[in-house]
């Protein structure tokens, strides 16, 4: 760009031709400038276009390369992976592992929708909601429906992804059917409720010595006279009989927020960590189940079965015992030992259910159950006698109403007995038995009262029954 020459006013006047020459050169210079500027503009524009084109090509190449890499990675991934379009759920890519999971050749998956393979379409909806909310889905267990009729369990993780320029979902499906089946099988040995109680997520986390301490209600129950009954049966009949019985009563424990710590042959040891009411309600329902079962057995001309159970509430430790290679659940404490004895005492009194005073005191509303005083016992080695109660809510209606009718007089008789007023106790028990001659507990107390009346009692007599410790 040529600078304008300095003008000499004298020249203009003296030499017009020189001025014309000067102006002509000036115009030429300006025209050159104009051409240069136009060329520069053109060059810059062309350069911009070519650079833009180059960048675009590079971006496309980068995208293709990234998709190629994705395919290589996904193909080499040993778990099924599919990519589906977000807009219409259609599968646009599936790796070699995806086909076998869904019971189809992998190439047949492309074009199908993922919904087709969800056992429950709501489950997919829930996953998509999580994806919308959190931007990803991690390790959610979902049941699939394969084209071959299989219904595999799958651990699903989903990520949002741009694939071939379209908003897509990358889903990784880990087949956990075998694991689920193993867990299911394992849960028969260590139930889920027990794992939850020990605050464990999985059986793998359970170790010898893991335990929980606290106040809980424990229940022991046993089939009455099972040993003699079983002698009459073949070994297969024995197993069938015990399993039929346990199969009926075990769900009741779970229903009332308890869990079975262990089976003791035909017996059950169960824990109710929540409340004493759970245990008592489970006990009553269990006895009602037995009543129903007996009605059914009667139609098959089979002998009725009888069950005895003891319930107690107190501090105990519940956990895993055994050795590294063989573990099982168990519970320890004096309260647990006592409960086992209470269950044994049901035979002595010929009743179905005994609870300790500790359990009775913790009931939210004892009035909703049929409970009557049973007697005082002392565990050998312990100084303090314990009050025991009979729960007769599950007695057959006829016996239940007779016990309700006579309860006041019966309990007064027992009060007289422990106050050494044996004559009053005896006459009251006679009246109770007149109304309800099949009240075996009243008979038991009448026998004891009569014995005390006939033979007299020593000075230090307390009337407390001493139980041998376990």
């Amino acid at each position, binding site marked *: 760009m040529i600078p304008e020459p300095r003008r000499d006013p004298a020249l203009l006047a003296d030499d017009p031709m020189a001025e014309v020459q000067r102006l002509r050169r000036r115009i030429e210079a300006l025209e050159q400038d104009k051409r*240069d500027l136009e060329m520069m503009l053109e*060059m810059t524009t062309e*350069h911009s276009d*070519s650079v833009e084109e*180059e960048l675009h090509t590079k971006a496309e190449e980068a995208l293709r390369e990234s998709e190629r890499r994705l395919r290589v990675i996904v193909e080499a991934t040993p778990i099924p992976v599919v990519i589906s379009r977000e807009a219409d759920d259609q599968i646009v890519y599936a790796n070699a592992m995806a086909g076998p999971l869904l019971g189809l050749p992998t190439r047949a998956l492309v074009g199908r929708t993922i919904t087709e393979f969800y056992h429950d379409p709501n489950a997919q909806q829930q996953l998509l909601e999580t994806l919308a909310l959190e931007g990803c889905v991690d390790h959610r267990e979902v049941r699939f429906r394969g084209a071959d009729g299989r219904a595999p369990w799958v651990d699903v993780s989903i990520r949002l992804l741009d694939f071939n320029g379209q908003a897509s979902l990358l889903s990784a499906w880990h087949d956990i059917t075998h694991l689920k089946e193993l867990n299911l099988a394992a849960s028969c040995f260590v139930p889920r409720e027990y794992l939850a109680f020990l605050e464990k997520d999985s059986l793998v986390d359970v170790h010898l010595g893991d335990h929980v301490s606290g106040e809980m209600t424990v229940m022991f129950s046993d089939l009455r006279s099972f040993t003699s009954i079983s002698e009459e049966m073949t070994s297969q009949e024995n197993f069938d009989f015990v399993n039929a019985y346990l199969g009926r009563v075990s769900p009741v424990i779970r229903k009332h927020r308890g869990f079975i710590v262990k089976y003791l042959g035909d017996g059950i040891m169960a824990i109710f960590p929540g409340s004493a009411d759970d245990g008592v309600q489970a006990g009553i329902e269990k006895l009602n189940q037995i009543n129903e079962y007996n009605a059914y057995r009667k139609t098959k001309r089979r002998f009725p079965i009888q069950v005895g159970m003891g319930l107690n509430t107190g501090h105990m430790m519940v956990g895993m015992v055994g050795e590294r290679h063989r573990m099982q659940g168990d519970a320890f404490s004096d309260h647990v030992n006592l409960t086992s004895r209470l269950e044994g005492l049901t035979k002595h009194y010929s009743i179905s259910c005994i609870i300790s005073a500790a359990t009775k005191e913790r009931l939210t509303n004892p009035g909703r159950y049929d409970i009557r005083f049973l007697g005082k016992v002392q565990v050998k080695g312990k100084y303090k006698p314990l009050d025991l109660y009979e729960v007769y809510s599950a007695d057959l209606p006829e016996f239940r109403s007779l016990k309700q009718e006579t309860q006041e007089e019966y309990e007064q008789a027992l009060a007289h007995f422990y106050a050494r007023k044996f004559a009053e106790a005896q006459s009251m028990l006679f009246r109770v038995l007149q109304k309800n001659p099949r009240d075996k507990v009243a008979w038991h107390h009448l026998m004891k009262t009569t014995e005390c009346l006939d033979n007299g009692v020593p000075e230090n007599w307390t009337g407390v029954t001493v139980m041998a410790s376990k």
Partner: protein
Amino acid sequence: MEIIQKDYQIRYDPHASTVICSGSFRLTGDEYASITEILNAAADAKPCELTLDVTALQFLNSSGIHTLSKFVLRVRGHNTTRVTVRGSSKYPWQHKSLVNLERLLPGLRLELE
């Protein structure tokens, strides 16, 4: 004279009458001032032969091509120097844009590797 930055380098060797540019010129208009300074120094030395080597210049934005154009026009203004531009066909922009420098400075030699 030279500028050495992480993303780009420019060096003027007066003895060899060569300006070598490399890296990526991805600067804004004002940021080209120091590069213009080096290019002007090379042009104003008015050598008979001057080489602009952009073989290793991977990227040049629009402000960059504008800066190179002004350099070529400055050399043309002196009317004393023959310019050779060395480039590489490895970078597509060079092939398309360096040719245009010839239009601003007829006689400019373009050598693309």
